[in-house]
C-alpha cells in the first residue's frame, strides 16, 4: 500500500442562500494515493466541483464546510490558519480551472503571473524566478518562452492559456493537482494535446491528479480510479474498468447507456428520464430514485449505504443489497 496523500472523510459542504441551505456536498469520502489519477465524474449540480473547491478552501462567500475532515498527510487542513492555508495552496496542492480565458488576469503579463507563485512559495529571487517561469513554459510545450513571458493573456490562444495555467499550477511542484474540467472549453485536437501533456507531466513529476469532469471519454482515457457523483453523494467508486464494464449503480449504468459510443451507433440512445434533482429539495432516500427505472419502496425511504460489489469496487444502490440477499437465500437453500 502506498501512502495516503489526501483523505476526505464524510465531507458536507453547504451554501447558505436566501432560499435556504443548499447541500451541495452530502457526505463524500475518498482517499488519494500519491502518483495516482483520480477521476470525479458527474453532471452539473452533482457537487464534483464543490468537492474540489472545498479541498482548496476557495468556496464562494456563502459556502461553508459544515462537517467532515480533509486530511493532507494526516493533518486536517480545515484547522489550518490563514497563513498555513496560503502555504498549502499552490505549494502542496494546485488547481486549474475550466475556463482559461477568465482565470488569468488580463492586466498582468504571463511572466508576472507565473512568477507570483514562485516568489511567494520559494526563496528564489526575481532573476531565478524568471528563469524558473521560462523553464516551466518549456516544460508545458509553449514555444519561445522568453517572448511569451512578456505577453498578455489575450495574445495567446485558448490551448496556450491552458498550458500557461498548468505551468503556473506546477511551478512549485505540488503533490496534488486538481483539474476542474480542464479541457471542456477546448477543441478536441487541443483537448487531446492537453490530456497528453497532463499524463506526461504526471509521469515525469509524480504528482497525484484529481480530474473533475462530466466527460466519460476523458475519464476512460486518463484515470486509474473513478468516483461517480450524483446529488452531492458518491454513488459508485472503483477502477476505471470496474466502472465502465461492471457498473453497479443504476445512475452509472444509465449514464453509460445514454452516451453514443462505438457499440450503440445503430441503436437508439437510452436516455435517463427526468431532470437533474433540485438540491434545495432533496428526497429522503436515494438522490437518484425519482429518475430510476428500478426504484423500490426502500429507495424512497432510506439512503443506501456503500457496499462492496467487487474487488476495489463499491456502490451505494439498494439493487445490490437485494441481489446479495437473493444470492444468500439461494446459497442457504442449497
Amino acid at each position, binding site marked *: 500500500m502506498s501512502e495516503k496523500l489526501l483523505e476526505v472523510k464524510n465531507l458536507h459542504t453547504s451554501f447558505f442562500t436566501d432560499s435556504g441551505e443548499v447541500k451541495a456536498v452530502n457526505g463524500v469520502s475518498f482517499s488519494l494515493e500519491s502518483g495516482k489519477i483520480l477521476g470525479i465524474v458527474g*453532471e452539473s449540480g452533482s457537487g464534483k466541483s464543490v468537492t474540489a473547491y472545498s479541498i482548496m478552501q476557495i468556496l464562494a462567500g456563502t459556502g461553508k464546510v459544515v462537517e467532515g475532515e480533509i486530511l493532507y498527510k494526516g493533518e486536517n487542513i480545515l484547522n489550518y490558519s490563514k497563513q498555513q492555508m496560503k502555504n498549502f495552496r499552490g505549494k502542496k496542492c494546485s488547481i486549474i480551472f475550466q475556463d482559461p480565458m477568465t482565470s488569468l488576469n488580463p492586466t498582468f503579463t504571463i511572466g508576472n503571473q507565473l512568477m507570483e507563485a514562485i516568489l511567494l512559495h520559494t526563496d528564489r529571487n526575481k532573476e531565478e524566478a524568471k528563469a524558473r517561469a521560462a523553464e516551466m513554459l518549456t516544460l508545458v510545450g509553449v514555444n519561445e518562452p522568453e517572448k511569451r513571458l512578456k505577453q498578455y493573456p489575450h495574445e495567446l490562444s485558448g490551448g496556450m492559456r491552458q498550458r500557461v495555467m498548468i505551468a503556473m499550477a506546477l511551478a512549485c511542484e505540488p503533490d496534488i493537482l486538481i483539474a476542474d474540467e480542464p479541457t471542456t472549453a477546448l477543441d478536441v485536437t487541443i483537448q487531446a494535446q492537453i490530456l497528453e501533456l497532463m499524463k506526461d507531466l504526471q509521469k515525469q513529476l509524480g504528482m497525484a491528479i484529481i480530474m473533475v469532469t462530466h*466527460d466519460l471519454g476523458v475519464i*476512460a482515457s486518463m484515470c486509474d480510479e473513478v468516483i461517480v457523483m450524483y446529488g452531492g453523494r458518491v454513488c459508485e467508486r472503483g477502477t476505471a474498468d470496474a466502472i465502465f464494464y461492471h457498473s453497479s449503480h443504476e445512475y452509472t449504468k444509465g449514464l453509460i447507456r*445514454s*452516451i*453514443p*459510443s*462505438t457499440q450503440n*451507433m445503430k441503436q437508439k440512445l437510452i436516455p435517463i428520464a427526468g431532470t437533474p434533482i433540485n438540491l434545495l429539495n432533496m428526497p429522503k432516500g436515494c438522490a437518484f430514485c425519482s429518475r430510476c427505472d428500478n426504484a423500490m419502496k426502500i429507495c424512497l425511504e432510506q439512503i443506501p449505504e456503500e457496499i462492496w460489489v467487487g474487488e476495489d469496487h463499491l456502490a451505494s444502490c439498494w439493487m445490490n443489497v437485494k441481489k446479495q440477499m437473493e444470492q444468500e437465500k439461494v446459497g442457504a437453500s442449497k
Partner: protein
Amino acid sequence: MSETKNLVEVKDLKMHFPVKTGWNKTIPLKAVDGVSFDIKPGETLGLVGESGCGKTTVGRTLLHLYKPTSGEFWYNGELVTEKNMPHLRKEMQMVFQDPYSSLNPRMTVEDIIGEPLDVHKLYTSKGERRDKILSLMETVGLNAEHATRYAHEFSGGQRQRIGIARALAVNPKFIVCDEPVSALDVSIQAQVVNMFEELQEKLGVAYLFIAHDLLVVHHISDRIAVMYLGKIVEIADADELNEHPIHPYTTSLLSAVPIPDPNIARTRKRITLEGEIPSPLHSPSGCAFRTRCPYATERCAMECPTLEDRGNGHKVACFNK
C-alpha cells in the same frame, strides 16, 4: 441507389466578413470560403470542425442571417435570394446552441412558440392558435400546463425543447441545428438527440446538424462533412467516414475524440496534431491544413486541393492521401 431530388443544394458558398485593420483599411475574414454540399429530403448532414472553422457561419448564411458574399443556395429547385427568403422561412428554421439566450425572457412559452404562427399568419382564430401551440408542445414532450410559464422556469433540456417547438411551428422541411445539445448535461443530451431522430421519422424533416462532438454527430447523421478553415475537406457517409477516414485532418480529429471505453482508450493510437488552427485572417496559401499536416509537400503550398470523389460519394480534398 435511388436518385431522389436534392432538397438543399449549396454551391460555392462564400461568406467574407470585412475586418478593419487600420484607418480606411479592411481585409476580408474568410469565415466560409467556397463550400458546396447537398441534402436530400429527410436526410441529416452532420457538419463538424473545430471552433473558428466556419461551421456555424455556414448555417447562419444559409438562412440569410448573414448576407452571403457569393455562391448559390437552391432550395427545392428554387434559387434562394433576399426577396424570396421571407416566405422560404416557413420552409427552413433554426435551433440555436444556447437555450438560455435564444428564448425571450419576457415572453411566455405560448407566445414564444406562437410567434412564428403570428408572423406567417397560420391560424384563423385564437382557438386554432392555441390548439396548434398545445399540439406542438405535446410533440416535443412538454406539458400543457407549461404554456403560461416563462423561459427561466425551465431547465436547459426543457428550454431546448421549447426552441425546437418554435422551429417546428411553421412545419418546416429543413432545420439548421447549431450545436443543439452541447450546452446540455450528458444525461439530458440523449433525450434531445432521440427527439431529433423521432421527429425526423415522423415529419420527414432534413437537418443540417452542426456540432463539435463527433460521437453525437456520428449517431444522428446519415452523412458527415468535415470543415477546416472555411472549407470542407472531406464528406462521406457517416459510417464510412468514421471507419475509413482519408483526409489527414479527419484522421487526427477522429483519433483525438476521447472514447468512453478504457480498453479502447488504452490500446488505440493517437495522432496528435502539432500546433493550432491558424487565424482565418491569415490563412495559409494553398491547402489551409498544410501547416499542421504530416504529409504536406511543396505542391500543397502552391495550389488548393478540391473535393474529389473517391467512390460511393466519399469526397476528399487532399493531394497526398
